[in-house]
């Protein structure tokens, strides 16, 4: 495991982003506009933005990063650059971590801008610490990156890659407790929701909206972190030096 190669990969991915300013603008603008839209929709309703805002603040970056990462890694596979890197002294973990760091930094910028807007002009308030909402948002974006990395191995075309978003993310969205409280889900689905990372991401922000500090929040954060590590590891194992 070489830090030099990991850092070079992260730097390279960020340089690619820098040459594509429209993508960077979209990364920040799309969640910012969506949160603004939500604030507008819920205007005048008592504290509803304070309830839904933090939850979606974590979910939008997850979806965006999932899509961006799965397309980016698919591109590495189809262009042959991944194969070339794997014939070089490039570690699989170095490659995956490089991507994680690059998109993670993009996620930090995204989360800071969007939560700055939410807590500022959009008027969102939480009982817990506002900075913890930012931490959850960054962690969710990283989770999106990690899931995108591991899932992109299953896709052989761009058409497949973009369809993995509805396939992998939308079921989690339905079961994570935004639409129906998880305790109110039918028995089997309630248990399934325990296996899905987004349930913990959303629960963490729910805790922050309603309480100052809770042990449940720490647990949620730890579970999201564990999912993050596991899917990064899974992403690394799906990279194949030899293909049929």
């Amino acid at each position, binding site marked *: 495991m070489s830090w030099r190669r990991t850092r070079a990969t992260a730097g390279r991915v960020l340089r690619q982003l820098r040459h594509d300013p429209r993508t960077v603008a979209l990364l920040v603008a799309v969640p910012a506009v969506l949160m603004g839209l939500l604030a507008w929709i819920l205007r005048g309703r008592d504290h509803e933005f304070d309830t839904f805002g933090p939850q979606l603040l974590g979910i939008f970056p997850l979806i965006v990063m999932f899509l961006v990462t799965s397309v980016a890694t698919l591109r590495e596979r189809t262009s042959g650059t991944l*194969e070339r890197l794997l014939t070089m002294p490039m570690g699989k973990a170095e490659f995956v971590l490089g991507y994680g760091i690059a998109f993670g930094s993009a996620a930090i910028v995204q989360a800071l801008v969007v939560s700055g807007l939410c807590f500022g002009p959009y008027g969102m308030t939480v009982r817990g610490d506002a900075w913890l909402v930012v931490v959850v948002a960054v962690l969710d974006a990283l989770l999106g990156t990690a899931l995108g990395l591991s899932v992109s191995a299953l896709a052989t075309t761009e058409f497949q890659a973009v369809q993995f978003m509805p396939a992998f993310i939308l079921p989690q969205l339905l079961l994570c407790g935004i639409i129906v409280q998880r305790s109110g889900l039918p028995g089997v689905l309630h248990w399934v929701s325990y296996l899905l990372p987004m349930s913990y991401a959303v629960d963490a922000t729910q805790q922050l909206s309603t309480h100052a500090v809770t042990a449940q929040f720490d647990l949620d954060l730890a579970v999201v972190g564990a999912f993050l590590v596991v899917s990064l590891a899974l992403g690394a194992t799906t990279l194949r030096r030899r293909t049929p």
Partner: protein
Amino acid sequence: MIDRPAVPTDPAVHVEHLTVVRGRKRAVDDVSFRLAPGTLVGLLGPSGCGKTTLMRSLVGTQVVASGTIELLGEPAGSPALRDSVGYVTQAPSVYGDLTVQENLSYFATILGASRDSVMRVLADVDLLPHVGSMVGRLSGGERARVSLATALLGSPRLLVLDEPTVGLDPLLRRSLWGLFRRLAAAGTTLLVSSHVMDEAERCQRLLLMREGRILSDTTPDGLLSATGGDDFESAFVALLESGLREGSAPSSGEGEVGP
């Protein structure tokens, strides 16, 4: 060609009974050969004959069905080879959304090659004027040269080049073949594939492939005199036809042909 007695050195490439199955086809079918260090070897044959699959097997990116491959004394794909074998794929595998320099600096870091080597390889492939250009905006030939330059980074002892001169103008092709000869003279072993037969004369040794098999293992002069053709195109066609008539794949066998 000067005939020299075979030097008793370890081969740079040693392939024994290699078979690769892709789908339902034997893309490489019981192929054996050895390449002496410092040789410039052409791998020629019609498209779809298994050149790329054979090359991918050498660099360790292809799942092989059976047989053994040793490069520089190590089994193909082993970690020890990752900074000593350079590989260029047929389609340029570089980042279109980075500049030429950014591409090469990145790959140099991964290989642990020096910063100086970036400028050296760019000069080798005549790309210094484009150092700051975005690769995606370059012409096809220029992009292919960025990909080739990447493989030259560091100091590879074996270069596996899959059609590196496709789409290049005659002057540039001549200059690249000159570069390949200089590299071979300096001790690098090169296996260069092409489906353009007139590139055969620039090689020291030729492996001619058809339908996954090595049809002939010869030298440019050997090919011409064996078939009685005047040019490589007709010589190869003559060889293909004689191979078809006999219904088998003749091969000059196991011998290690020196440079």
